């Protein structure tokens, strides 16, 4: 079956705001699907309420609807457009649920729209656990034994029948709420009670827990002719019991024999084929008993998922792109592998490297949250690392996390736990388990003991042991007497120069770098080509390793490097992927070769066909430096990758590498509270009184001077981390002591807090001559709630024209003083008619994409060209299109953390945002928001 020519227009449903468990991976899949369908001459219409996505950019589709994901919105779209088919498999569970709802209401039928890439019956079979179990039994696929219990007594009876350990899963609760593991009889009563109470229908599933079984995931693609291929097999290093989204995962599978693998492959294919009739992607999870190698099916997702995004980046195979083509009728054997260009898309990728995915958590944002990892996904982002050895990939993943780890180890702070403390800690899986495993091995704990505590396959533990052995060996040497071969082996095991500098007791990573470069111990770059070099590939997708031959040959063209923003986390996420993607395209339009560096697999900017060259590497100085050594670019853009990229400006500056746009020194003024305030003073711009302190005593003196209430925070933080508002000395002392405990030696900033003031921000572009205000956003909530967590309105709705003009005037003054070339974001507080400047960010901000979308102006394209210096503002005709107002609504993931205080404060907690357009201020939604603006405020 070739392409179905009766499909001329397709509606793609997005996944809405980012929440834990459903994040940027669906921006990747939605974007790929849109591009893939448009390649076929199909008109693509998109709906998504998430303004930070690249998929909702006008360049991605023929028509984009930034509307709430509701049936009403769908009807509006169907009335306004001739739509032949809807593709709901690219927007996660949200899109599927919406498609199902519309289906039940007969909407699709009414408008003559076909559902493609999906079988509604298949979704039901996959989602309903009981239905799934029944269906698996029917087709002869083993599953974990389970029973549905409707009463306490029944539950106890079934528990006895099934045996421990077991899982209690309440029916009809969201995301595993109320579910728990029961290891022994003693724990049963309480867990059962809790589960039954959590369920609205007083029903729980009592299921055998296959704790300690190994966990694997297969990514499948099927076409309408029933051809199936396995794109990727992923092994979870963390075995059953920890949500796959919270597990460290590895590809290809490391400890799987062919007999075990083929059993899984056959079973997965059988499951997909019997599930229903749909062409597209599918994910199947299995548990494997390491003693007997029997397998059971855990779940099946008949859609593109988070794992598909990872599998795409891990193999190079563009799953969403191909899935979209299969949905419109193509067969796999009719399509080409886009990586090689001349071989078939019907094949199973072969890898000649190791992939390690590591989740990124933000428990620091959710005080009181249970940080035990389990049935419920709790991570907010992830990094992927590629290497030629497992230890290399593992340590690279650590370097990409941006959480102070510089490899598999922190080498600082107070992590010196004793053996028994460590062993106790290992029993309960938490975010830092892999680091604690290394600590335990350092102290001589055996692989066997750690395996018994964690069930992690000994092969992985043995690999960590290799890192430990090397670390111990290294400490016998100094940089000057380390044997060359040992240094090389350390690098092959992924040790960073910074790690080596500490272990070899030399002054700086620079010395290590110089020494190894002199010895020729230098990174070589290898291609990700889907076929482990069997065929020639054209796709410039590279990773580094310490191997013999380098494949990445720099072109003769002038190049610009773009730094990505690393793993998603609260305060820095998808919006910077949007910025980077636009940046890459703008760079190409200016005639440069665009080179991308990032380690976040849930991004569009790391798609193999976005940049001219992609280095999938940690956004970590050493890695960046070596790429620069090789590529010799004209310079680097740091304004598009959030704080992560900006932080590297100092290193670039010190090494004399050109930074496009605003200079390092000027950026540093904006970042350094002292220098910035001095500048504001000089410019005659008001700012809240502030001071700095290193001790509680000093802090109290400063607070007295600036006046209570005061805002206390450590310097250099992201998303208001550990920020507190205090009203008296007692509270202040407590806050400072707590801060110093967590961040010893850190400088503490103390600002006078402008209580009940209004907050607003400006995003602007300055080209050295002309200043352009992209947008002014006024927060609905009063000061005290982090800007990322407040509802904000574009343009301002309550501020006086004089106040707005003053803000614009100040912003321009600051931009001129900082010699901004490119983007700037300035935050203001307005109290009693006085406009205060709170801070300035010399880069793309979280709100930049929002403003670009709301006004329908390609601001990131314009900004990039100004950063590069190829254009001036006068070269663009900017026309803002917005009738009424656009509201930015924060979206939270608190339901993943039962028991966590939901009140908002100066520390950002939202995981995503939505956009909502209103005609005027009489809008009921807005009125409600405005009325309740103070309700969630903690102080």
């Amino acid at each position, binding site marked *: 079956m070739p392409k179905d020519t009766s499909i001329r227009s397709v509606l793609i449903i997005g996944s809405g705001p980012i929440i834990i468990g459903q994040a940027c991976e669906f921006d990747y899949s939605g974007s790929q699907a849109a591009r893939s369908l448009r390649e076929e001459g199909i008109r693509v219409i998109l709906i998504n309420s998430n303004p930070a996505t690249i998929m909702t950019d006008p360049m991605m589709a023929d028509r984009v609807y930034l509307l709430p994901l509701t049936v009403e919105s769908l009807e509006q779209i169907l009335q306004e457009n001739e739509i032949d088919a809807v593709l709901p498999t690219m927007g996660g569970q949200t899109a599927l649920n919406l498609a199902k709802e519309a289906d039940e209401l007969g909407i699709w039928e009414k408008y003559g729209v076909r559902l493609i890439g999906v079988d509604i019956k298949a979704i039901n079979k996959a989602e309903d656990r009981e239905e799934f179990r029944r269906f698996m039994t029917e087709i002869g696929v083993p599953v974990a034994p389970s029973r549905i219990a409707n009463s306490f007594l029944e539950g106890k009876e079934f528990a006895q029948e099934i045996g421990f350990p077991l899982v209690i899963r309440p029916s009809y609760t969201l995301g595993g709420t109320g579910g728990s593991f029961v290891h022994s009889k003693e724990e049963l009563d309480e867990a059962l009670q809790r589960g039954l109470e959590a369920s609205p229908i007083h029903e729980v599933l009592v299921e055998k827990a296959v704790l300690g079984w190994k966990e694997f995931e297969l990514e499948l693609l099927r076409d309408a*002719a029933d051809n199936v291929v396995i794109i990727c097999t992923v092994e979870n290093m963390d075995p059953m019991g920890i949500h796959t989204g919270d597990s460290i995962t590895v590809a290809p599978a490391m400890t799987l024999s062919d007999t075990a693998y*083929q059993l899984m492959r056959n079973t997965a294919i059988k499951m997909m084929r019997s599930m229903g009739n749909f062409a597209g992607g599918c994910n199947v999870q299995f548990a494997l008993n390491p003693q007997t*190698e029997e397998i059971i099916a855990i779940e099946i997702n008949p859609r593109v998922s988070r794992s598909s995004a990872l599998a795409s980046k891990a193999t190079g195979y563009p799953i969403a792109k191909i899935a979209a083509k299969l949905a419109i009728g193509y067969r796999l054997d009719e399509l080409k592998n886009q990586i090689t260009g001349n071989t078939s898309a019907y*094949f199973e990728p*072969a890898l*000649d*490297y190791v992939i390690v995915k590591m989740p990124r958590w933000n428990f620091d944002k959710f005080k009181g949250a249970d940080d035990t990892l389990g049935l419920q996904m709790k991570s907010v982002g992830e990094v992927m690392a590629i290497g030629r*050895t497992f230890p290399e990939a593992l340590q690279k993943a650590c370097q990409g996390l941006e959480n102070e780890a510089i490899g598999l180890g922190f080498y600082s702070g107070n992590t010196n736990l004793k053996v028994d403390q460590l062993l106790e800690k290992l029993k309960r899986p938490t975010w830092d388990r892999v680091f604690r495993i290394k600590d335990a091995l350092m102290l001589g704990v055996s692989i066997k003991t750690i395996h018994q505590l964690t069930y992690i396959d*000994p092969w992985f533990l043995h690999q960590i042991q290799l890192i430990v052995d090397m670390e111990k060996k290294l400490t016998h040497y100094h940089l000057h007497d380390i044997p060359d071969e040992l240094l090389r082996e350390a690098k092959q095991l992924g040790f960073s120069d910074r790690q080596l500098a500490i272990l070899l007791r030399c002054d700086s990573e620079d010395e290590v770098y110089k020494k190894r470069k002199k010895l020729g111990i230098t990174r070589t770059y290898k291609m990700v080509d889907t076929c482990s070099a069997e065929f020639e590939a054209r796709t410039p997708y590279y990773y580094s390793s310490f191997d013999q031959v380098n494949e990445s040959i720099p072109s003769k063209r002038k190049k610009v490097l773009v730094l990505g923003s690393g793993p998603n986390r609260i305060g820095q996420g998808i919006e910077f992927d949007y910025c980077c993607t636009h940046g890459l395209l703008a760079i190409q339009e200016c005639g440069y070769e665009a080179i991308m560096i990032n380690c976040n697999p849930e991004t569009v900017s790391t798609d193999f066909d976005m940049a001219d060259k992609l280095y999938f590497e940690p956004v970590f100085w050493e890695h960046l430096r070596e790429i620069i050594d090789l590529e010799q670019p004209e310079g680097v853009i740091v304004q598009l990758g959030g704080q992560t990229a900006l932080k590297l400006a100092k290193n670039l500056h010190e090494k004399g590498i050109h930074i496009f746009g605003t200079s390092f020194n000027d950026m540093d003024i904006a970042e350094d509270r002292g220098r910035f305030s001095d500048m504001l003073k000089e410019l005659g711009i008001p700012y809240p009184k502030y001071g700095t302190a290193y001790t509680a005593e000093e802090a109290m003196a400063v607070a007295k001077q600036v006046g209570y209430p005061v805002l206390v925070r450590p310097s250099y933080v992201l998303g208001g981390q550990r920020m507190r508002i205090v009203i008296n000395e007692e509270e202040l002392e407590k806050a400072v002591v707590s801060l110093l405990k967590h961040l010893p030696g850190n400088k503490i900033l103390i600002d006078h807090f402008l209580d009940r003031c209004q907050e607003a921000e400006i995003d602007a572009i300055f080209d050295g001559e002309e200043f352009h205000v992209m947008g002014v956003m006024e927060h609905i909530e009063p000061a005290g709630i982090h800007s990322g967590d407040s509802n904000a309105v574009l343009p301002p709705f309550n501020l006086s024209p004089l106040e707005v003009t003053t803000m614009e005037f100040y912003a321009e003054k600051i931009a001129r003083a900082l010699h901004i070339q490119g983007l700037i974001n300035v935050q203001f507080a307005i109290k009693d008619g006085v406009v205060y400047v709170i801070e300035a960010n010399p880069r793309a901000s979280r709100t930049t994409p929002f403003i670009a979308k709301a006004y329908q102006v390609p601001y990131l394209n314009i900004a990039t060209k100004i950063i590069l210096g190829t254009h001036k503002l006068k070269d663009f005709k900017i026309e803002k299109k917005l009738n009424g107002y656009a509201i930015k609504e924060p979206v939270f993931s608190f339901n993943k953390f039962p028991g966590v205080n939901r009140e908002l404060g100066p520390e950002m907690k939202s995981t995503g945002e939505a956009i909502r357009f209103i005609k005027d201020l009489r809008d009921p939604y807005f009125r409600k928001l405005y009325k309740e603006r103070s309700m969630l405020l903690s102080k």
Partner: protein
Amino acid sequence: MASTIAPRAVLLLEDGTCYYGKAFGKIGTTSGEICFNTGMTGYQEVFTDPSYTGQLLVMNNCYIGNYGVKADEVESDSIKIKGLICKNISHFYSRTLATSSLEQYLLENGLVAIHQVDTRALVIHIRNKGAMNAVISSETDDLSYLQKVLEQTPRMEGLDLASEASTDHAYTLGDPRSGVRIAVIDYGVKRHILQCLVDRGAYLKVFPACVTLQECEDFQPDGYFVSNGPGDPAAMPHVVQLVKQILSTKKPFFGICLGHQLLALANGIPTYKMHHGHRGLNHPVKNLISNRSEITTQNHGFAVDPDALRLSKHMEITHINLNDGSIEGMRMKYQPAFSVQYHPESTPGPHDSRYLFDDFIRQVKMYQNAPVNA
């Protein structure tokens, strides 16, 4: 990753290219034709596949040995490759059901191996330059000596290795009371091919390469199976002669890999040596009869000439490779004889193509009911 104390080893290619790495397995020197396999699972099955006789094998997957070895996951009684080249061979393995480590297994089989080689660079080299002879040594790095070893290593073209890989005596397998009797001509048959036939109820007699038609016919077979095997099919005129004789019986015929090439030669269609062959578990093949596609296991360095096949009056193409369009399967138009270039028994590899064994058994049964007139 091995410790620093492992001795150095060297890999020298015929074109003078040299790679250094660490020794693994037996300390010694070995030479043969170098080829690569892209599979990510099933190394033990690959190493024991008789079709690899005489070859130095590069494994593209960056870890080998992680799950040790298991006594029954073999395709023959011993390792058949002549040397092994890897990125990382794991000293440590983890598998409850394993019977030994790969290291132990290589030592028992006296296999010389080298690892910590930039295998990806090596594969690209082979991909560009084509198959060639090479030598691995972990006992000397005297390149001029190794050059001499290379000179004495025979070329794969014109080499009859199949007779060597064959069984030295005939034996039977399966249930003697079975109504389906298959004569298997062994040129290095993989165990799982025999298993696939036995699983479908066949009673097999496996004959050595030097067998005559009469000896086979004495078994009163209902069908013939001609196996896979190493070496150059064009170097076995006597075998081609035997296949011609078998075909003249008009009994159902199934050939795999070398058996496929022999079916072509017996029909006057030539074979040729490929640039660097197909070896892996992910090769896409389209069945032109059913229009369905299958992911296949492959291991071949020679192939059937597509132009000559297209011109043939009594043969037709049934399967093609979706990557390079090469011939993957064919059948005779006027009698029940077919063959595939790939490995439908697929150990290791996907089980997509096992239907071919069903097809063969079905043909045999049809023949029993209504034999084609001789």
